C-alpha cells in the first residue's frame, strides 16, 4: 500500500534516483572530515537564534528615553536599537540566552570555518578537481566575518560603535573613491544620518545569510557531485571512496553532532557572559573607552591597525593615511587573494595537473605545510597584537614596548614558522621506521604441537632501509580483495 503510493509519487516526480544517490553518499570516517560540520551546525544555530532576536530587536537609531528594568540606564537617552537589545537581555524571557547563544555561535562559526579550512589546506584537498569548492569556501569565510561585524554593530553600544567608527575611517582611507564610498554607505558624514543601523540590519539578517545559504548549497552540492577525498590507506585508492553511507550510519552520527554543537553553544550561552552591552552604555561619538576590541575574527585586522606606524602619503592635493590604508585594506586584500588563488599558485609551482582524490599527509608536502604555518604565524601574531593594551596591563609591561615587540614579531614569526615547519616535516619523514610497513609474522603449528613464528617475505618497496616513497602521493597497493576490504558498516564505492 505504502509502496504503491510511493511509487505513484515517484512515477510523477522521479526523485527516487536522486534520493538514492544522496542516501548512498559515502562519508569517510576520519575525524578531521567533521570539522566543516561544526561550521554548518553553528550556522543552523545562528539562523534559529537570529530569527528569535529579530522578533524583538528594533533596527532604529531613533532616540528614546530608557525605561526598562536595568536601573543605571533609566532616564537616559538611548537609541531604540540599544534599548531593544538591553530589553532583549533583561525583559524578554530567555532573550539573554538567545543573544548570548547567537554571539557564541557566531564566534564558533568563524572559528570552525578556519579550522575546517586549515584541514583542507594542509591535506591538499583543494587540488584539482576541487578548486571551485575552495573558492566558495573562502567566500563564505569572508561573508561570515563581514556578517559578524555587522551583527556586532547592531546593538549600537559603546564598544561596537567604536568599531563602526574605525570601519568608517578604513573605508575613507581608500584612495580616490574612499570618501564617496563612505558617504554612500553611511548616508552622509560620520556618524551618518541614522541610516546605518537599519542598513546594517537588513544586510545582516537577510542579504548575507541568503548569499551564505546559496553558497552553502553550492558547497555541499559540489561535495556530493565530486565525492569526498580520503586519506590513503588500506583498500583506498584514487578511484574509490571508503566510508559510511549517508543512510543510516552517517545520518545518525551527524544528527548527534548537530545536537552536540547546539548543546555546546547553548551551554556557553547559558553560563558564560558575552558582550554585556548594558555595562557599556549607548554609543556616542564623543565617548571613548580603552580596551575596546572587536570580536576575535576581526582581531587580526585590529591588530594590524595597532602595530602600524603612523605613516601618511601626501601628494597631488590628496592625503592617503597609509597607517590605515595599508593594514586595513591592502593587508587583508593580499591575504584573501592568497587564499583565493592558492590552488592555482600551487599547481603552477608543482606542475601537477592531475586529479586528486587521495589526500596528502602534511609532512609529505613540506613546502605547502611550511607556507601554511607561515600564514598562521602571521595571522596569529597580528591577532595577538590586537590585545596589546590588555597584555600590557595584565603583565605590567609598558605599552610601547609591547607594540614594538609585535612590530618585530610580525616579521620574525612567519619566517621562523616557515623554517621550523619545513624542518619538522623533513624530520618526521626521515624518522626511522616511519612510513614502513611491518612485516607480517606467519604462525605455524608443528606436528608436535609447537608454535612457530616466521617473518614473511618483504613486500615490494619494503627492502631493508628503504623508505616508502611518499612523494607526491603514497601509493598503496590494493592487495586485499574488495569483499574483505572493509570493516563493519563501512562501504567502499567506486567513483
Amino acid at each position: 500500500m505504502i509502496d504503491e503510493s510511493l511509487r505513484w509519487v515517484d512515477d510523477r516526480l522521479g526523485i527516487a534516483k536522486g534520493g538514492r544517490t544522496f542516501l548512498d553518499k559515502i562519508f569517510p570516517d576520519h575525524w578531521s572530515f567533521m570539522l566543516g560540520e561544526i561550521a554548518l551546525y553553528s550556522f543552523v544555530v545562528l539562523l534559529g537564534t537570529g530569527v528569535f532576536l529579530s522578533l524583538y530587536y528594533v533596527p532604529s537609531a531613533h532616540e528614546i528615553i530608557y525605561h526598562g528594568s536595568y536601573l543605571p540606564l533609566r532616564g537616559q537617552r538611548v537609541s531604540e536599537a540599544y534599548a531593544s537589545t538591553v530589553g532583549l537581555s533583561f525583559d524578554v524571557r530567555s532573550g539573554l540566552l538567545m543573544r548570548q547563544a547567537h554571539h557564541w555561535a557566531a564566534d564558533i562559526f568563524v572559528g570552525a570555518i578556519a579550522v575546517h579550512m586549515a584541514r583542507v589546506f594542509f591535506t591538499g584537498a583543494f587540488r584539482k578537481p576541487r578548486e571551485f569548492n575552495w573558492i566558495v569556501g573562502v567566500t563564505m569565510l569572508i561573508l561570515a566575518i563581514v556578517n559578524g561585524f555587522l551583527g556586532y554593530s547592531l546593538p549600537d553600544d559603546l564598544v561596537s560603535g567604536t568599531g563602526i567608527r574605525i570601519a568608517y575611517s578604513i573605508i575613507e582611507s581608500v584612495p580616490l573613491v574612499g570618501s564617496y564610498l563612505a558617504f554612500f554607505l553611511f548616508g552622509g558624514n560620520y556618524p551618518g544620518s541614522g541610516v546605518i543601523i537599519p542598513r546594517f540590519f537588513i544586510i545582516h539578517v537577510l542579504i548575507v545569510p541568503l548569499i551564505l545559504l546559496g553558497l552553502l548549497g553550492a558547497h555541499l552540492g559540489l561535495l556530493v557531485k565530486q565525492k569526498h577525498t580520503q586519506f590513503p590507506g588500506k583498500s583506498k585508492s584514487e578511484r574509490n571512496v571508503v566510508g559510511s553511507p549517508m543512510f543510516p550510519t552517517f545520518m545518525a552520527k551527524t544528527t548527534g553532532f548537530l545536537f552536540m554543537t547546539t548543546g555546546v553553544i547553548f551551554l556557553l550561552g547559558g553560563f558564560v557572559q558575552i558582550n554585556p552591552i548594558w555595562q557599556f552604555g549607548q554609543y556616542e561619538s564623543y565617548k571613548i573607552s580603552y580596551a575596546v576590541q572587536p570580536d576575535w575574527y576581526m582581531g587580526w585586522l585590529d591588530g594590524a591597525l595597532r602595530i602600524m606606524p603612523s605613516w601618511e602619503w601626501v601628494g597631488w592635493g590628496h592625503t592617503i593615511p597609509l597607517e590605515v590604508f595599508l593594514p586595513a585594506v591592502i593587508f587583508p586584500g593580499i591575504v584573501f587573494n592568497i587564499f583565493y588563488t592558492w590552488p592555482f599558485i600551487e599547481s603552477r609551482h608543482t606542475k601537477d595537473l592531475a586529479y586528486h582524490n587521495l589526500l596528502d599527509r602534511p609532512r609529505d608536502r613540506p613546502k605547502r605545510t611550511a607556507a601554511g604555518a607561515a600564514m598562521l604565524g602571521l595571522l596569529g601574531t597580528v591577532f595577538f597584537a590586537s590585545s596589546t593594551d590588555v597584555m600590557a596591563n595584565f603583565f605590567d609591561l609598558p605599552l610601547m614596548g609591547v607594540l614594538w615587540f609585535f612590530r618585530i614579531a610580525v616579521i620574525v614569526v612567519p619566517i621562523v614558522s616557515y623554517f621550523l615547519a619545513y624542518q619538522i616535516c623533513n624530520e618526521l619523514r626521515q624518522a626511522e621506521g616511519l612510513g614502513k610497513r611491518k612485516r607480517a609474522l606467519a604462525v605455524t603449528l608443528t606436528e608436535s604441537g609447537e608454535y612457530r613464528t616466521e617473518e614473511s617475505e618483504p613486500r615490494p618497496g619494503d627492502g631493508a632501509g628503504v623508505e616508502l616513497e611518499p612523494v607526491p602521493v603514497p601509493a598503496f597497493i590494493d592487495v586485499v580483495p574488495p569483499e574483505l576490504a572493509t570493516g563493519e558498516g563501512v562501504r567502499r564505492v567506486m567513483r
Partner: protein
Amino acid sequence: MPKDHQAGEAGTVRRWLRPRTVAPFALVGAVGIIGLIAFSPGSAHASSTATPAPVQATANTATSSQASAYVSSNANPPHLGGQAPSKQLGLYYITLPRSYIAPGAALFAANCSTCHGPQALGGTKAPNLQGLGAGTVDFWVSTGRMPLANSSIQATRKPPRFNRLQTLEVSAWVQSLTPGEGVQIPVVNTSLGNLEQGNTLFTLNCAACHTITGAGDALMDGAYAPTLHLATPTQIVEAIRSGPGNMPRFGPGNITNTNARDIAAYVTKVLQHPTNAGGIGLGGIGPVGEGFVALLIGVGALMLVCFWIGDRA
C-alpha cells in the same frame, strides 16, 4: 557505477547500534537537560540583580566629639560609621581635629621624612607635599601607595600600611603645614548618588582611561590606569580632586561635588558589582577573553567530539 554493498540487510540494525553511533545521542540527552536548566537567565534574573547590593552608607558630621568616638574604636575603612547624613548633598569635606597633628608629625618623621624631607618639602627622591592637602595624603596612604618601600618603583595600590587613625593623623600634620590649602578629606554618602547621572559622567570623564567597565588598562608611555574595583568612595573623590600620578585633576568647576558623589556611587555600586546576568563575567576585558573562550572551549570541545566519534587512523 558499480557498488559493492557488502553487508546483508540483517546486519543493519546492529550496525546502527555501534557505540560510536549511539554515544552522541546519549551525550545529547545530558547536554540538552543542562541546556534547558540554563534556559532562563532572562527577566527573573535581571530584576533581582539589576539593583546592586547597597554599599554601606558613609556619612558623618565633622564635630570632634564624634570624630574622637570613631578614633577610639579605630575602625578600619572609611568614615566614622555615623548614621544620618546631616548634609543634604551627600558629599562634604571634614576638618581633622587638632589633636591629630602631634602624633601625625611623629608618624611622618618616622615613615616619610627620609624621602619627602622633614618639613615635607620634597627633595631628589620625592615630591613636595606642602599645599597638597589632607585629602591627597589620605588618598596616597589609604591606597597603600605610601609609604613607598623603594623610590625606584612606581607607586601602586597595595594593602595600606597605616590604619585609619594613623592615616588621618599624618594627613592632619601635612595639612597643618599649609592650613586651608589643597584637597580636603571628603565624606561621601553614596546612597544619595544618582546612578544614571554617574553613568553618564563616568563614561564622559573616566572611561577613556579606566575603560567603560572600570577594569583599567595600559596607557601610552608606560603608564597605566588601575582598576577601580578596589577604590572606596572617599578614595574616588580624592582621586578626582587631587589627580594622582598621570591622572588629570578635576576641579569643582569641572566636576561639581554633586557630580563627584554620583561618580563615586556609580563606581562603587554598579562597576564594582556589575550586573553579570547571563553567566560568568569574563573580567570586563571584553572580546579578548570571549575570543579565547570561543576558540579554546567552544571550537576545542567540538573538535574533541569530532575526534571522539570519528576515525583516528
